[in-house]
């Protein structure tokens, strides 16, 4: 048995899984940023600011959580921001027209989901690379949204509806509860269901996944649809938080969402990453942007910093990957 001797010389995996170690580093980074900010700015540790950070992070997280699943399959969804804008505008119109927030919420979720499904169809049935298909979708959606809104702004929604984004429960903003709920659901889905396992398998090797009997096309459709639906959910929270809808609200959302996913340790090459990591990623990004805000750095610097963070995060991922191989 020559093989057994060969196998034995291979070092076993460490006690803690690689994922756990990576997460630990990221949590540490988040804490470090907190410490620095606490020293630099008096207002950082105020309750109001902390709640504000959590609320901001939750908005990024909603978009990024769905996106995490897409990136886990080695895909990318560049249309999430534009999707939020369109869904918000349509949901807002429905609420205005019917006066029913429930109907509006359903429409927003459905709109996001349909857009996601269309992305999935382009990637699976038409076999267009995901980054370019969703990039095309981004501009289609932008065009549609601007055309639909024709420069108008929707204002003023029912007070009950506004509670979703702005309200508090036991002293915590409601989006934070939603964040916890979806963090739980997302983690359960990715780690504790067979669909989640299949998604990891697809990302790790799509050809092998298909030849292992995984219905790859159907799972990809699901993943893109979920990503779209989460964008729809984010659109509802934006709508309710801003109490208004405009065609351009999605423009600055995509890059931060991608940044959150990548900082969170999800690999662009698929198969590695967690939804919880994305939460940490969203938190780190929000802390950085919040810190800049507290230190009175102009908001104009935000895209620059986000861009740098995206590149650094991918760089880091590639370095750890190269070490692993």
């Amino acid at each position, binding site marked *: 048995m020559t093989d057994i001797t060969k196998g034995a010389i291979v070092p076993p995996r460490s006690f803690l899984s690689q994922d756990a170690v990576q997460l630990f580093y990221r949590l540490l980074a988040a804490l470090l940023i907190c410490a620095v900010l606490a020293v630099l700015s008096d207002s950082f540790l105020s309750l109001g600011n902390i709640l504000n950070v959590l609320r901001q992070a939750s908005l990024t997280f909603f978009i990024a959580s769905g996106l995490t699943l897409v990136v886990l399959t080695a895909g990318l969804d560049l249309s999430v921001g534009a999707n939020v804008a369109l869904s918000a505008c349509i949901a807002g119109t429905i609420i205005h027209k019917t006066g029913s927030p429930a109907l509006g919420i359903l429409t927003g979720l459905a709109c996001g989901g349909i857009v996601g499904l269309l992305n999935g169809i382009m990637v699976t049935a038409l076999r267009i690379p995901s980054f*370019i298909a969703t990039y095309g979708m981004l*501009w289609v959606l932008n065009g549609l949204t601007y055309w639909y809104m024709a420069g108008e702004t929707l204002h003023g929604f029912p007070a009950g509806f506004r509670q979703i984004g702005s309200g508090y429960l036991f002293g915590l903003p409601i989006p934070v509860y939603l964040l916890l709920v979806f963090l739980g659901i997302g983690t359960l889905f990715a780690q504790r269901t067979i669909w989640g396992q299949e998604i990891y398998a697809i990302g790790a090797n799509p050809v092998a996944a298909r030849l292992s009997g995984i219905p790859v096309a159907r799972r990809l459709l699901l993943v893109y649809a979920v990503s779209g639906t989460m964008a729809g959910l984010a659109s509802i929270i934006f709508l309710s938080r801003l109490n208004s809808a405009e065609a351009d609200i999605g423009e600055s959302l995509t890059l931060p969402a*991608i940044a959150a996913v990548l900082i969170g340790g999800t690999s662009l090459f698929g198969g590695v990453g967690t939804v919880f990591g994305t939460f940490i990623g969203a938190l780190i990004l929000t802390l950085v942007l919040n810190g800049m805000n507290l230190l009175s750095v102009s908001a104009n610097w935000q895209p620059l910093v986000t861009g740098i963070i995206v590149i650094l995060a991918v760089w880091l991922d590639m370095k750890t990957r190269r070490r692993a191989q």
Partner: protein
Amino acid sequence: MREAAVISQPNPLQRIPGVAIVLVLLIALFSVIAPGFLSVANLSNVLVQSTILTMLALPMTLIIMTEGLDLSMGAVLTLTSLCVAIVSLATKSMLLGLGAGLLVGATFGVANGWLVAIIGIPPFVATLGTLGMAQGLSLIVSDGQSVVGIPHSVRDIYSATLLGIPVPVVMALVTYAAFHGLLYHTRFGTYIFALGGNREALRYAGLSPNRLLIAVYAIGGAMAGIAGLLMTARMNSGHPTAGLGLEFDAIAAVAVGGTSFERGNGWLLGTVLGVIAVGVLRNGLNLISLPSSVQVASVGVLVILALFLDGLRSRA
């Protein structure tokens, strides 16, 4: 070996119909439904308006031939346009403005190439990151405001004519000639085909694919610099969202023009036809009073269709 007989016609000939048909169909459609489309004034307007896009789409063709992508081009153009505006405003010199634009553009190009070639980040993410950076820098240098009052020497570039031909069109023609010569008649051009077609072949020939790749992205950045000058001249100002989404029109033109996203199969003339097709589409929709938002959406649909057909063709 008498096998030469089975060889079919050169590829570009087979490909002409694709773009040409799209272009002819679009022109036919708008001739019928858009009054004034076929007028000389309008058609020359289409040409002049296509010049900026040409200057982005040609280098984009080279980048896509290397199986790459540059999503930052529009944002870099915005930044270079602002640089041209700010520097020419401060120095009253068009040439210094152009120099600044070129420098900034080429720097971003080199950065893109470095991230893709040396660090190995997939092009769409690397350039998405630099897109954010260029966008941020644009906001920072302009403080979110338009830069106005730029010298006449800059503005006149867009409206001047040379031998009766608008200067931007002359610039686009010169650019095309330069790219044609570069791609089809120089060693560097030969190596661009190899970058997408077979990188190993380059290594065996003792050439460094990484340096070539950086050069290709650098050309893209520099061209964004020159296009930035035209953009500033056209708007008679620098504006922090001037180039928003232009990279998408460039990708659309390349895709419609028949350049394949795989294996280094590029066609510059197709890209030019693709640029005109995008220009005609936007102009025609504008003439029938559809807002620019619909134009954006239809270009999006055009790209998805072109890619779908490209996929079908490469599978066939």
